């Protein structure tokens, strides 16, 4: 920003360094190739490939997210996720058995009384979410310095669970304050080298921007068609609020994400799900016809209305394969629209102020293990 006109004598105050725009340079087609190949491998390996696919997706997204000319780097590996998953399973197995026995005792007193035990799993899930974030953070590197996290997974789980309770009591109205509080905990314990993170967003700000969505939700739930609208707008408002509250040291973040930015992505996703389901239905019909033909039945209504046909092997095998293939296809769409495109739109909306504070940050922090990711996977909350 140096200008050629010289203004002598008055030592110009250091000009405010301009905001730095975050860019996403990833090639959409190569990401599609990556997730399509990954889905095929997931199908062949009955899902085991997911650890490597998740890693490859993160590597792609991280490395093409460019801040001030430098791409971030994801240094996690699929093998770590696999080991984390196996260890988590070894720990979860006795937990599940204990859960089963406790549940038995509770149910004996009253049918379906094991609900309080579900609460325990909820707490455990929150723990897993925190620890999984910690793993991802310590695998995130920018300019040769990693992010890292302190804080306790159990303390976080306790807070998140208490907020969860309040959520039920207030019918979700408290959500902005819950988000702000949990985000404060996460960011205060997040570091980039020797810079400490913080979160200055408040629940009130979030509420001011999103309260009308809370009113719309019951209407949206009644008319299903409204749910994607409400959800997409909610996610966009939440992201913008979140980014604007982020601080790392004195580095400030800003996002002007349009509240409608995600709408198209959710609708594209829904459209593809509907379209691909239209393929699945004839596939089931074909499977049923083949199953009937194999067992030598007449292809009439009587055969097709017999439930036994649909629990017979000649039907179940192609149906399960078709269903699995369909699920993999849905995963491809989801990863393309709701992971990659959503990521692109989100990060490209970010501007960073005062990045010079991060120009000479001393490296610090230890790597965390992938156990949290393993728990999250085992508990089916494996987020991105």
């Amino acid at each position: 920003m140096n200008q050629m006109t010289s203004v002598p004598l008055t030592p110009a105050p250091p000009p405010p360094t301009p905001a730095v725009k975050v860019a996403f340079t990833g090639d959409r087609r190569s990401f599609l190739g990556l997730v399509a190949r990954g889905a095929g491998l997931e199908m062949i390996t009955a899902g085991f490939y997911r650890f490597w696919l998740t890693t490859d997706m993160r590597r792609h997204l991280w490395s093409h997210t460019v801040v001030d000319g430098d791409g971030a780097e994801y240094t996690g590996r699929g093998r770590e996720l696999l080991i984390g998953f196996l260890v988590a399973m070894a720990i979860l197995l006795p937990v599940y058995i204990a859960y089963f026995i406790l549940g038995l005792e509770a149910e004996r007193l009253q049918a379906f009384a094991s609900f309080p035990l579900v609460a325990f799993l909820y707490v455990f899930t929150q723990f897993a979410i925190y620890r999984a974030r910690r793993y991802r953070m310590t695998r995130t590197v920018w300019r040769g310095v990693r992010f890292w996290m302190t804080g306790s997974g159990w303390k976080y789980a306790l807070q998140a669970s208490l907020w969860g309770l309040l959520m039920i009591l207030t019918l979700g109205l408290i959500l902005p304050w819950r988000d702000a509080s949990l985000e404060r905990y996460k960011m205060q314990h997040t570091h980039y080298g020797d810079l400490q993170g913080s979160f200055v967003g408040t629940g009130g700000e979030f509420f001011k921007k999103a309260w009308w969505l809370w009113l719309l939700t019951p209407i949206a739930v009644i008319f299903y068609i409204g749910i994607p609208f409400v959800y997409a707008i909610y996610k966009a408002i939440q992201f913008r609020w979140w980014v604007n509250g982020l601080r790392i040291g004195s580095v400030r973040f800003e996002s002007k994400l349009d509240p409608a930015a995600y709408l198209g992505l959710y609708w594209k996703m829904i459209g593809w799900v509907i379209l691909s389901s239209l393929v699945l239905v004839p596939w089931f019909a074909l499977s049923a016809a083949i199953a009937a033909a194999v067992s030598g039945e007449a292809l009439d209504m009587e055969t097709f209305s017999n439930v036994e046909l649909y629990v017979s092997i000649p039907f179940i095998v192609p149906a399960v394969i078709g269903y699995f293939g369909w699920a993999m296809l849905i995963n491809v769409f989801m990863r393309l629209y709701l992971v990659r495109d959503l990521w692109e739109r989100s990060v490209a909306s970010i501007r960073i102020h005062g990045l010079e504070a991060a120009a000479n940050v001393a490296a610090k922090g230890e790597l965390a293990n992938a156990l949290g990711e393993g728990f999250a996977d085992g508990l089916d909350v494996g987020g991105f």
Partner: protein
Amino acid sequence: MSDPGSIVPDAAPIDAAAPTRAPVTFLDGASSRRRDVSLRLNEACEILEGDAVIASWPYADIRRADGPAGQLRAMCVSAPLLARLEIREPALAAELEHRCPSLDAHLPGSRGVLVIVGWSVAALVSIVLMVLFVVPLAADRLTPLIPYAVEKRIGEVADKQVKVIFDGKQCENPAGRAAFVKLVEMLRQAGDVDATADAEVISNQIANAIALPGGKIYVFEGLLARAENVDELAGVIAHELGHVKNRDGLRNLIYNGGTSFLIGLLFGDVTGSSAIIFASREMFQASHSRDAERSADATTIAVMRKLGRSPKPMGEFLLRVTGKEKGKGLALISSHPLSEDRLARMSQQDAAPTAPPLLSASEWAALKAICKSPAKS
């Protein structure tokens, strides 16, 4: 300082000794400071800041790190973990790539993927074999080890849930109930089943009967309504008593739990995995439970013969309830043996009754009306 202005032919190696002034950035892994450096490609890749060599990376230790398109980002396994070299000049990047034999050695290449696929298939085969052979064996061996008191508790849980699911009331018509208790007691003693067995009629239109862990047997009103004589119903109750005697309910529970866990392990959070787990479990379970059904049928045959009655009516009753099953490709998936085969087996054991009917005509009539409220007389 810069490269000699001459145009270097493609094939000619870049003068390795001359410090390259291409834009190269070095991150030392200790701080986020970007250091403008130059490279000297000698026996090792020397990194110079000004004229000072600040690091020297052996070519064999250099690996590719992820970076945005248009640059080579390199790291070194013998340098600090996060030290990085960013090379933006294509020719220099190509030259360095050419010199580093193990640049991509750390990433799973196509061979690495094959290894992953190989191990996954091995795990898949192992889990299928476990489900087919080890889990049933474990269920068989574990079942006798579990005390009746525990089974009874499990049964109480199942009992509460069944009542909720089938939304039925116990049928309490006194005359019908007396006949029902008499019939069950007769069958129980003939089958040598201990007193934990306990049967009820539930007012629900399903044509079925079930035995829960812990010895509870439910006969649904729908089945009772379709029975034409005492022997038909007695055969079914004897069959369920056979399940109780063999502790099949508990065995199934162990088997199902083990199978669900193993299959769940495989699929993790792949979309729609619960549906797949359910379908595969049903399939595995079917083959497992057919043996249990045959064994329970054997109890029916033994009990009915001991009481001087024929088991054949039960076979006919089953066929009437299920309809023809043969030739529908169901043999593999059905959880029960085909009704035709069961009838054939019962028919082999057919003999003229040597004892009077198990219930009198009036008792049978009362039993049929067990779910009606007592007639006011």
